[in-house]
């Protein structure tokens, strides 16, 4: 029996037309939400880093510069669409899509609020995230490869190496949480935390690995080698301009949002929290994650390629594995 409720809780029912419309509406709403969040996270990044550097940050467009990023996005969208002469055209055009679609896709499993309106409550949420986000590597690599630019090529290869090697510890650190909660479903994980404590406390080791690997996965400072401005001039997207470049930027920040959501869900009880509505709790947790990332960005220098690789394989992975073993042992014993 179809009710209005089905519009939102379509996951548990066979697909029907209204359900499909609901899905579509949900996707569009999430897309817009993501855009909004990205725009204002960039705004916050500029302001926050600016304050730490004794600057004011954007302050011209709109009150307190609130529309600065909006203007920037508009600028990127209406810019001339340049495709350099000797690029591999097909791949060049495909790369931003390859990069962006997975970024957007992973948002579909992030439980933004208690009733997870608009998002899929699928059973393998955590696994889905890790699997889908790996696709972005292809976009980045193809972008670097097809640009027919040596800097972009180096940037693309670095990204591929970096993202692949940090994917592993990232996945491993998630497994610890999954073991504790006994489910891959993100809402299930939140529910499990509601009964006990936030997993950041028992899983502190996993949390540390997660944050480091997550930062590297998102190519953010100190792991921003793929687009190391002072070395590679801009990395894999050096030949991109206009809205294609905007897509790469968008990817980066959507992943920031997604990673923040994932972290809040896995380690900080997701939308759960007293007094305030669930979505607000979630927003607060993501905001803190953003701020932390920007703080790192303002402070740390860039790590070197070879050091970064050995850091992942020689330190993070063993740590993640140790965490996994400890979690398993404790779980069996207790």
């Amino acid at each position, binding site marked *: 029996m179809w009710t209005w409720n089905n519009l939102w809780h379509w996951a548990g029912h066979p697909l029907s037309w209204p359900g499909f419309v609901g899905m579509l509406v949900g996707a569009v709403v999430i897309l817009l939400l993501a855009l909004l969040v990205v725009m204002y996270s960039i705004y916050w990044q500029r302001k926050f*880093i600016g304050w730490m*550097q004794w600057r004011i940050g954007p302050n011209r467009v709109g009150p307190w510069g609130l529309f600065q990023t909006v203007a920037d996005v508009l600028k990127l969208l209406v810019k001339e669409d340049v495709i350099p002469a000797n690029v591999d055209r097909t791949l060049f055009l495909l790369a931003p899509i390859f990069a962006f679609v997975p970024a957007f896709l992973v948002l579909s499993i992030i439980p933004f609020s208690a009733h997870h309106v608009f998002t899929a409550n699928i059973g393998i949420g955590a696994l889905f995230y890790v699997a889908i986000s790996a696709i972005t590597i292809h976009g980045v690599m193809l972008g670097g490869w097809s640009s027919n630019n040596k800097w972009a090529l180096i940037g693309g290869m670095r990204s591929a190496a970096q993202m692949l090697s940090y994917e592993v510890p990232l996945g491993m650190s998630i497994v610890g949480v999954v073991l504790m909660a006994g489910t891959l479903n993100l809402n299930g994980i939140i529910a499990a935390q509601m009964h006990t404590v936030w997993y950041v406390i028992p899983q502190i080791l996993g949390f540390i690995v997660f944050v480091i690997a997550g930062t590297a996965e998102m190519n953010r400072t*100190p792991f921003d080698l793929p687009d190391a401005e*002072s*070395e590679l*001039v801009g990395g894999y997207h050096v030949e991109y301009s206009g809205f294609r470049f905007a897509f790469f930027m968008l990817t980066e920040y959507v992943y920031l949002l997604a990673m923040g959501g994932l972290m809040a869900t896995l380690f900080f009880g997701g939308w759960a929290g007293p007094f305030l509505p669930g979505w607000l709790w979630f927003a607060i947790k993501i905001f803190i994650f953003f701020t932390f990332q920007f703080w790192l960005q303002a*402070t*740390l220098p860039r*790590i*070197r390629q070879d050091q970064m690789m050995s850091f992942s394989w020689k330190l993070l992975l063993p740590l993640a594995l140790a965490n996994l073993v400890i979690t398993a042992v404790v779980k069996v014993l207790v």
Partner: protein
Amino acid sequence: MALTDETDLVRTEEMLLNVGPQHPSTHGVFRMVVKISGETIIEAEPVIGYLHRGTEKLAENLQYSQCIPYTDRLDYVSAMLNNYSLVHAVEEAMGLEIPDRAEYIRVITMEMNRLASHLIFFGTYLLDLGAMTPFLYAFEEREKIIDMFNELCGARITYNYMRVGGVKFDTTPGWLEQVDAFVKRMKGEMVKYRQLVTGNEIFLARVHGVGAYTTEQALGHGMSGINLRCTGYNWDLRKKKPYSIYDRFDWDVPLGSAGDCWDRYILHMEEMEQSLRIVEQALQQIQPGPVMAKVPKLIRVPAGEYYSGIEGTRGELGFYIVSDGKDKPYRLKIRRPSFENLQILPIILKGVPVADMVAILGSIDPVMGEVDA
């Protein structure tokens, strides 16, 4: 079988990469043609000359006082020292006696300029390594210095302040107090820099043991300044061949040992502290008096050849004057330390990863205006 072994399993190719002339980390219009295999540099060749303005040739048609503004444009981040180097060479040649106050003002401005230049090194080096905040902190302090210079001589970068026989202006009222306040403030800032950067593990890992060379290599390439002292070779012209009034102050020459990027970095930081020490003492000793010696209206250097070198920010900065007794130099040769320091680049870049390239280039701290003259 290790993957790095040369096997015919994987066909690899070397790639020729043009770094610059427009590249964010080449500190100006400098170009390096590097051959890379993977991420490893196997050959590097610096290409210079993009900023060549023919200063030496221009000087042949200029009176000595007209040459001074051109020296501003050599090492444009430490113009005071360039000014001084030229007027010092002329003064030596003419055997002029400089009033005390002028010498003190010169030393204060020169050391402040050295400080400003090292601040730029600190900021841009960290920017090369990917940290952007130290850059802004450093530039804010530098801004204070150049604002003071602005008040003193009317320009922020191209001072044209020194004159043969003294300095152009006496200090404005309250200027020395400003400097004093700045020195006090700067000492606190140095502590901040240490906390922010010097202890950072990522930074340490990037600079330790990178781009090292030996004293012999450095001497063989005619290097000087910090780039030579980082190998542990004690050579500072302010101590070795005291000029001006440097022998009146109590200060040390910081020395490195390994000759790597870390040593060069830390020597810059320590030299900043020594500069502060010198300025502090100079501020205490300075007395009122004239700032200009009696010099003929038209400066004529007696016929002959003269060389005088000073310890510039980047090494030995020397002016070699060939004079035929006229008011213009017959030939003016400038020993530009950045140019000599850069020569070692192909050797130390061999076999390092691309990421270290900017770390090494940045640590040598060349200024293209000086390299190309």
